[in-house]
């Protein structure tokens, strides 16, 4: 009974108005590594994604309402030892970080719990990639070599000592900010992306896809940024936290849109 009431309380909390859900798609994604022959083109329904990465201020509010996610209270099953380590105390930001910066040093579990606290979820990898193929003016800019180079340049640079605040750059075609150039972001299925169908039989993870002849399976070979993201995400465990990894939440598309 208590759980029923609690879930009612959480689900009916409104999405934070300072970081609204933006409608994305529908669209067709040609994934870098199609998981199977039948999945070279993925048709995605329209969905919603938060305008920008979740900030320190937003995550602090969540912590104040859900003290079981405080860094001094949470089970080490869900976070590693650097969780929220830039914050001065478990319940305040202090001087080293600003409220408008994206929250980093958050685990997949913590990100997922944040989104679920207002009835949202993390985006799937395909959803995130679809949103991220948009340039400032086009829904799919992956053939734009200049734009792709700009993203690659960011991946090539070391992370700045102090992260910029969110929304300092132009929004993309959908109205989303900072999918590139600020931080890496968690996705719902970060650990299942590289599973081929064959692993139903082998029970294994397709290591060969990373390198050498295995990369022949890639269909969008020029989309190197997507490959970098895949490799990075696949290297994570759900409790990991790092200095440039944050998240934003998603929801299914509104019916009738």
């Amino acid at each position, binding site marked *: 009974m208590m759980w029923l009431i*609690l879930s009612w309380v959480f689900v009916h909390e409104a999405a934070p108005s300072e970081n609204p859900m933006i409608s994305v798609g529908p669209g067709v994604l040609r994934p870098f590594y199609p998981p199977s022959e039948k999945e070279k083109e993925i048709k995605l329904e329209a969905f919603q994604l938060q305008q920008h990465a979740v900030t320190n201020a937003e995550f602090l509010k969540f912590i104040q309402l859900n003290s079981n996610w405080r860094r001094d209270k949470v089970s080490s099953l869900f976070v590693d030892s650097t969780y929220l380590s830039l914050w001065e105390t478990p319940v305040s930001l202090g001087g080293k970080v600003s409220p408008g910066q994206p929250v980093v040093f958050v685990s997949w579990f913590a990100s997922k719990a944040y989104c679920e606290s207002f009835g949202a979820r993390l985006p799937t990898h395909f959803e995130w990639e679809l949103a991220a193929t948009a340039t400032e003016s086009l829904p799919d800019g992956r053939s734009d070599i200049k734009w792709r180079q700009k993203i690659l340049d960011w991946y090539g640079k070391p992370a700045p000592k102090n992260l910029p605040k969110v929304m300092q750059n132009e929004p993309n075609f959908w109205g989303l900010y900072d999918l590139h150039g600020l931080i890496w972001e968690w996705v*719902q299925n970060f*650990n299942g992306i590289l599973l081929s169908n064959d*692993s*139903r039989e082998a*029970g294994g993870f397709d290591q060969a896809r990373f390198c050498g002849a295995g990369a022949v399976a890639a269909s969008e070979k020029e989309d190197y940024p997507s490959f970098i993201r895949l490799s990075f995400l696949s290297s994570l465990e759900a409790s990991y936290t790092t200095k440039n990894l944050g998240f934003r939440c998603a929801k299914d598309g509104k019916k009738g849109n």
Partner: protein
Amino acid sequence: MKVMLAGLLFGWIILARVWAETGTASFYDLEAQLIDQDGKSISLDYFRGHPVVVTMFYSSCPHACPMLIARLRAIEAKLNPVKRLETRFLLISFDPKLDTPAALLALQKRHGVEPSRWRFATPKLESKISDIAAVLGIKFRKVPEGGFSHSSIFGVLDENGMIKYRGEALQEEPEVFIKYLVK
């Protein structure tokens, strides 16, 4: 109503606090509710107090999952009689749609395992499936033509749910898991 809700919330926060202060990372911190092969609602820590081997599967899986169960039975068979009576096996499904209690019960009967020591179960909340998989280090993906692509991992839990070991179910010998069960 609001006051009552706030009270409940507060109570829950206090409970959560006490829980975390034990300072251990238990599998049972996940607090998931499951439906087992008898249609009963059980919590994830149903086997608290026992050493447990836990894994994930789905019953319509053609090849890997029968092997998974065969492996678990091999582990059970190789335990000494005392440990065998103590040890429990928890198999959690990826597939809430097809793995109804009836399907799970049929699976238990087909494999002839002892129901008091073996639970086949499906999480009540679908969002808990990825949580459980993540804690066990199991990678999985729903395949469009049906079924799931997944890695096969056995987790060995102690009496309090502490994860003693996670290993490749189909590649490591039963003795490896037994070593952690009897520790």
